[in-house]
């Protein structure tokens, strides 16, 4: 098991390195000049060159990359002389548009995205998987047909439609959110009610989509597992239907679902761009989309991309370990 872990962790680090390098290379070959974008209308070549130097863009790509990696561990210094400043480790870079160290920006945006992800996750898992199990057990009865309808609706509605519909026809119509204050971040430790009010509708929006997929997936997994030979053996042993479901069927049926859930959760951690946009949440999604579309802010883009990739890669490792824990056939000696 240890050998397996070591192998996987090394592979994970390799992927992260490759991802970060790829992002660098992409930006290196793009025709736009980040230095030219750092100043507004009153731009002279001197200012641009000065910014280029301060941004560290006047050195070859490899050196930039090297400095970036170094910055992750020891922080990074920008400019020289009196105008010099440092971004403390882990330093992803400096955003000239926002005049802040990227790490700071990310640090502010991440709790928002995390709250969004966790709440949606709990909602969609309990509802989706629960409904899936119910539909499987009551196959072809009305509960199943209702669940199927839900699946169809849920998977057909993209978040930009469901989100806006919920916002307009539920939240605003019944005055459940204050449109001016909407999306303002409050910490759950300071103002739990406020926090809940901020996130409940985004949670429902996201959960709707995922729950539908999980209902469908759970239903088919449970049905398939129920027809396996070992379930027949369990029944022949004299186990009650409830015990069979709980101890035998679910354990086998849910294993792949848990794997998928882990990956979906990790994907969400990178930012739910559309949902955050609709509900005006200052999360990683909004941070990245603005950096790409509005600001062309390379350091921020770099940071959000690498962060999103890291979440997914790490989640991959974790779900593989979890799956190996569940299914002994997968464990590599």
């Amino acid at each position, binding site marked *: 098991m240890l050998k397996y872990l070591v192998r996987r962790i090394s592979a994970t680090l390799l992927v992260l390195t490759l991802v970060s390098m790829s992002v660098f290379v992409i930006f290196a070959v793009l025709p736009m000049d980040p230095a030219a974008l750092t100043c507004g209308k009153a731009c002279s070549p001197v200012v641009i060159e000065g910014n280029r130097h301060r941004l560290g863009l006047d050195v070859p790509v490899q050196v930039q990359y090297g400095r970036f990696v170094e910055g992750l561990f020891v922080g990074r210094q920008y400019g020289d002389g009196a105008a010099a400043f440092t971004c403390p480790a882990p330093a992803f870079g400096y955003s000239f548009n926002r005049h802040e160290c990227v790490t700071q920006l990310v640090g502010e945006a991440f709790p928002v995205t995390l709250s969004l992800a966790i709440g949606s996750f709990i909602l969609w898992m309990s509802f989706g998987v629960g409904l899936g199990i119910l539909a499987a057990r009551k196959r072809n009865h009305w509960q199943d047909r209702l669940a199927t309808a839900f699946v169809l609706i849920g998977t057909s509605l993209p978040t930009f439609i469901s989100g806006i519909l919920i916002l307009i026809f539920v939240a605003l119509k019944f005055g459940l959110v204050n449109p001016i204050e909407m999306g303002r971040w409050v910490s759950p430790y300071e103002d739990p009610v406020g926090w809940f009010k901020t996130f409940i509708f985004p949670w429902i929006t996201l959960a709707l989509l995922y729950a539908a997929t999980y209902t469908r997936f759970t239903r088919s997994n449970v049905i398939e597992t129920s027809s*396996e*030979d*070992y379930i*027949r*053996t*369990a*029944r*022949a*042993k*004299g*186990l*009650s239907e409830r015990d069979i479901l709980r*101890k*035998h069927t679910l*354990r*086998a049926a849910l*294993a792949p679902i848990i794997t998928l859930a882990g990956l979906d959760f990790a994907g969400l951690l990178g930012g739910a761009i559309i949902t955050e946009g609709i509900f005006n949440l200052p999360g990683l999604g909004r941070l990245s989309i603005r950096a790409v579309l509005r600001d062309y802010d390379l350091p921020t883009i770099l940071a959000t991309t690498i962060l999103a990739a890291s979440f997914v890669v790490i989640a991959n490792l974790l779900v593989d370990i979890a799956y190996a824990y*569940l*299914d*002994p*056939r997968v464990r590599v000696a």
Partner: protein
Amino acid sequence: MTHKPFLEVKNLNVAFPTGDGLVQASNDISFTVARGETLAVVGESGSGKSVTSLAVMGLHDRKRTEISGQAILNLETGPIDVISADDEVVRKLRGKAMSMIFQDPMSALHPYYSIGNQLIEAWSLYNEGSKQDGKKRAIEMLDLVGIPDAGKRIEEYPHQFSGGMRQRVMIAMALINNPSLLIADEPTTALDVTVQSQILQLIREMQKEFNMALILITHDLGVVAEVADRVNVMYAGKIVESGGAEDIYYRPDHPYSIGLLNSIPKIGELESKRLVAIPGQPPSLINLPQGCSFRARCAFVDRVSNNLCATTAPTLDQKSTDHFSRCHLSEAELVKARTEIGGK
């Protein structure tokens, strides 16, 4: 003998309603099995041999199956009819009064749990006691069925065992609560022939050890000859012949049995005679034709007067002592029939 046989099946019918019609999988089945006795149920696909036993175990989905008749277990506490009893009552008989092992040992054990876990689970259903007690009993059973190094292997997972070993584990699990009836549904079909003989020997030993009634379901006439005291030959959902093993093999009393025995190549018979095949194939169980179900493949249909085979379904009649056959032919005619096919 005043003791009633442990299992009494009377006029058991099992049918499945499907989109295409009612599949009459098992029709008017009656037989008994006593403790210490081995009944072999022989048949091909669609014969109903498995369906009947699943009904005895109460393993059919009552919502999707029409079952009638009786399957009575004569327990010490009194008789219980599985067919009419409550689901909960029947559940508590499974694994305790009666057990079943199935064909494919590769898929019959849960891949995620250790075999110890699964054995102890079976034990804890019917025994008060700690996990340690259960584990002790489980190791005892594994030893009994011939798993070497049982104390260590009990922690292992099914995929770490070979097919033969897994079947042994299944047997251990089926017997851990001392059942009085064991139903083995094609227990050796998926195994290699050298392993097959090990498992058959084990099943016979266990039967003696626990004094169980044993129902062995198979399509292999060789296996039947090895272990059976009595044989039920099934075809298209009905018992077509029933008798002692020697009667069935040396004095078969049904054209199907006769045909079957003549169509299998036999080890030791080295003069290559052409196999006498039964023409055609088993009928569909939906809308069975009127009259005898075997009629379309029978070589002796024209020996029966008045076209009886086409109009009247034969009943299971006694042809000689303790030997029954579902055929319109008389015993004398059947004796003649035996010699005509393949010179038996």
